[in-house]
């Protein structure tokens, strides 16, 4: 057993864990943040994507112990003051989900795409960038629409905040 301290959704957490514990298990089983899903557990599907130090990673393919001192944001950390994050709102508005299992990872990846590539995303870019996220229901069409709209909404929210 070993000790790890990280900041998850703005709160500092310290725990003594088995070094084998994956970040996904740490979030779900230790912190009870079950919004982060485990789909394939083989780094293919992207349902487990969270942000670590501002970058999207697959939490099923990172050891929690290795992320000592990291800042982690999960799907639970996106909404603020009782309002959905613009990307979450866009997925709702554009019906970018059916069963919803992949949605937390899709949204975390989508926010990361906007952080890296800006708000003006064409369809090709979105589809390429969503390479590491798999959805078995939607056929992706509405997800792509939601990401494009969410990206613009994120930019508009940023402007409004300034």
């Amino acid at each position, binding site marked *: 057993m070993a000790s790890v301290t990280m900041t998850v959704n703005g709160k500092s957490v310290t725990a003594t864990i088995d070094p*084998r514990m*994956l970040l996904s298990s740490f979030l779900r089983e230790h912190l009870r943040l079950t919004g982060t899903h485990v789909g394939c557990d083989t780094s293919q599907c992207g349902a487990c994507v969270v942000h670590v130090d501002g970058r999207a990673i697959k939490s099923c393919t990172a*050891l929690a112990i*290795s992320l000592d001192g990291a800042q982690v944001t999960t799907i639970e950390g996106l909404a603020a003051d009782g309002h959905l994050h613009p990307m979450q709102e866009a997925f709702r508005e554009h019906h970018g989900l059916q069963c919803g299992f992949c949605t937390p990872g899709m949204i975390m990846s989508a926010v990361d795409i906007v952080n890296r590539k800006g708000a003006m995303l064409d369809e090709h870019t979105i589809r390429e960038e969503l390479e590491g996220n798999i959805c078995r229901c939607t056929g992706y069409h509405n997800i792509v629409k939601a990401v494009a709209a969410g990206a613009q909404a994120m930019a508009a929210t940023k402007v409004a905040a300034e």
Partner: protein
Amino acid sequence: MYAFNYQRPKTVRQAAGLLAKAGGDGKLLAGGQTLLPTMKQRLASPAMLIDLNQVDGMSGIELKGRNLHIGAMTKHADVANSHVVKTAIPGLAALAEGIGDPAVRNRGTIGGSIANNDPAADYPAACLGLGATIVTNKRKIPADEFFTGMFDTALEEGEIVTKVIFPVPQKAAYEKFPNPASRYAMVGVFVGKKGSDVRVAVTGAGANGVFRLPEFEAALKTRFNAKSLDGLSVPADGLNGDIHASPEYRAHLIGVMAKRAVSKALGK
């Protein structure tokens, strides 16, 4: 995943000491994008896992004269997005941008990729195609001597890759035909031209991992143009065959990818 003894050294020297102490039972953890899935499947079960993520000075990108230095712990995403890499060796930045998917690129490292020497990995082709030098805690190893076979390298026990030095070429490009599911290269060809020297390196195809194509190199030295490769072929002997592609298909793809890479290097 089987239990292991976890260590988090702060320096390369400490890491090397731990690795030596572990004997053959120690593994270094860099980005973990291959090692952790392998451990989860119980295909690897190191007794000691030595995490390099808190070791200082192992990542970063720097142009020194006509050489590009990339720290072993530098993430694929950082190579892909680096202004320095995009300016000095755009083909290398493009290669990094094509590895795995965005989340994998945010964790995976260049040092981890080459030390693993997966026969379908992208970076080994760049190292061989650019004539890179692999720097370890003990010595400098030319890429030509580093990749010794499938999942095998010249690294000795207790040896840790600390950085990779790429000579800046005049022209270079990488083309790969990715497996549609895994995105690993079914065939990837890296072409580099520096002065009168031309290198052509192939990944994804060889049963013994990455290799060079002397015949293609000779033809391109005469004239660096895709047409120079007309009529040249690669024997299927010694190439991988699996459910995705036969050795013959891969042999054909090598020619196609090589031509595309040359055209891309020429900006066509």
